[in-house]
């Protein structure tokens, strides 16, 4: 029974992890840019949900669109203003640039919101669900379902909409897509915007579960790294599989080694995966 409970805990956590990583994975796959700002984007989403709840009384589930809209504007302008200028540059240049931007944004966040840990505490929590001896808080379960729905929505957008097909085309072959009339720079900015949207949505969902602080951005970023490598890069399905795997891995790891070793465990898994299966669980070829 304990095993089943831990498995469920892991899956609930993993659904949120998928939502955390999917935007990061999309940007990495399509633009070939590691966006070190992703963690801060998630934190901004969390703050949007926090203040919407404190001041306007909007439930974090309902403030997802607000957070997403704010983040889309931020993401789109960062891409159009800064990252588009170095998008074809070597790895080191793009990494250093996003690191510089991350230092700036994170410092702004600390000044604006202080480094205190805050949390959204609902006045009317939905209680707990007990089924066959397994207990799950309904808020968490709902957040996980929302996260998976949003990830599924992104999957649908990429596969069914015109813009989504253009994004996928750019990911496959930039030159060929440009020849087919796709405006590559615009698609880049849009992709980055969508990546930020997913970060914002994830941020407002996890504001119910995680404490909110600018200092958390590095934690989320680390998780996004691991999930991308576990699941395989640049596909929504990969992020989903990676997220669920990491969630389960962390839960069982906490049982076996103690929760303080969760980060070590996930990073060692990351290195092992990079060494022995760099294409991830899904086995698609990653982008170098």
């Amino acid at each position, binding site marked *: 029974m304990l095993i089943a409970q831990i498995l469920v805990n892991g899956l609930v956590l993993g659904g949120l992890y998928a939502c955390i990583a999917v935007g990061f994975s999309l940007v990495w796959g399509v633009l070939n840019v590691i966006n070190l700002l992703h963690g801060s984007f998630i934190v901004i989403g969390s703050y949007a949900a926090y203040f919407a709840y404190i001041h306007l009384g909007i439930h974090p589930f309902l403030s997802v669109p607000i957070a997403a809209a704010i983040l889309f504007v931020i993401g789109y302008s960062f891409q159009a203003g800064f990252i588009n200028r170095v998008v074809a540059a070597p790895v080191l240049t793009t990494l*250093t640039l996003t690191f510089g931007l991350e*230092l700036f944004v994170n410092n702004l966040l600390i000044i604006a919101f202080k480094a205190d840990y805050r949390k959204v505490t609902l006045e009317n929590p939905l209680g707990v669900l007990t089924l066959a001896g397994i207990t799950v808080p309904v808020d968490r379960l709902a957040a996980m379902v929302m996260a998976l729905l949003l990830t599924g929505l992104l999957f649908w957008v990429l596969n069914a909409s015109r813009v989504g097909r253009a994004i996928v085309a750019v990911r496959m072959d930039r030159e060929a897509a440009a020849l087919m009339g796709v405006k590559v720079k615009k698609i880049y900015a849009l992709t980055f915007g969508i990546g930020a949207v997913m970060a914002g949505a994830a941020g407002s969902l996890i504001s119910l579960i995680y404490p909110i602080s600018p200092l958390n951005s590095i934690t989320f970023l680390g998780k996004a790294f691991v999930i991308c490598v576990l699941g395989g890069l640049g596909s929504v399905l990969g992020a989903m599989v990676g997220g669920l795997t990491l969630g389960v891995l962390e839960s069982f790891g906490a049982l076996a080694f103690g929760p*303080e070793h969760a980060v070590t465990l996930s990073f060692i898994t990351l290195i092992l995966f*990079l060494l022995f299966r760099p294409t991830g669980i899904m086995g698609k070829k990653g982008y170098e």
Partner: protein
Amino acid sequence: MRRILLLLALVGVLLVPMVGNNYIIRLTTIMMLYCVLALSWNFIGGLTGYPSFATAAFFGLGAYAGAICQGQGIPMYLAWILGALMAAVFAAGLGLAILRLRGHYFAIASLVVADVLREVVNSATKLTGGGMGFNLPVLKMGIDTQTKLFYYLMFILAILTVVSAAYVNRHRLGFGLRCIKQNEDAANMIGINATIYKTVAFTLSAVFVGWAGAFYASWVNYIEPGDVFDILFSVKPIIMVLLGRAGTISGPIIGAVIFLFMEELVWRNFLTFHAGVLGLIVVALIFYLPDGVLALNFRRLLAWRRN
């Protein structure tokens, strides 16, 4: 002309402890430490073109190895050598494993190493003191003598690093590394054993950093995991090298000097926003000085200003 300038700079640095106050001496010691970090990263990042973020791992490893050795009663100088060796052996093993990766994958793999080591040190409480940090035995000498002693010891390490960098740059190894940077497959084809060359470069990028870490531990007398495994120890050397010019000897040194001045200036003037200003400087650097200050054509710059 260049030799005279170099000689003057050397004499200037040697004279600092005689004329400067403790603040200047401390600042110049940090400057030389930065030179060591930047030149070390240059082996793997500048010459070989592998974006390594492992500097913090080597620094912390050296610091803890040196500190623990000294705690066991091993003399300070021997402890530093052991710290350097520890970092070098670790880098050689790690390099054999992760240097097969390229681009982003290598960057991420090298980035998380410091985090893993930090957590390991954090949890090995008996040996390292964990999150409480580690206190080193205090040296039995006056503060002023100590400051000067550490200054000259850092100077020796910096010179050692510069000489090794210059040697590698001129010889077969440096040539091979530059070939790998341009085209690794082609380099392999013409008989350069890329695996061995890269691993040697990675080890070189660790040995002096490990030494510097052990030095740092003795110098500040107290270390804790979050301090010596700080990600900024990985990123700062990269910024310095980019600031000067990657793949050269003088570039990283000049970059380190400029970076120290900027850092000190920013620290003084923007106490709560120094990380943000540093970030802005990094962004400006990428956009306006992508090849570093050494790539600037000063004559053209002067002519442009006159017009």
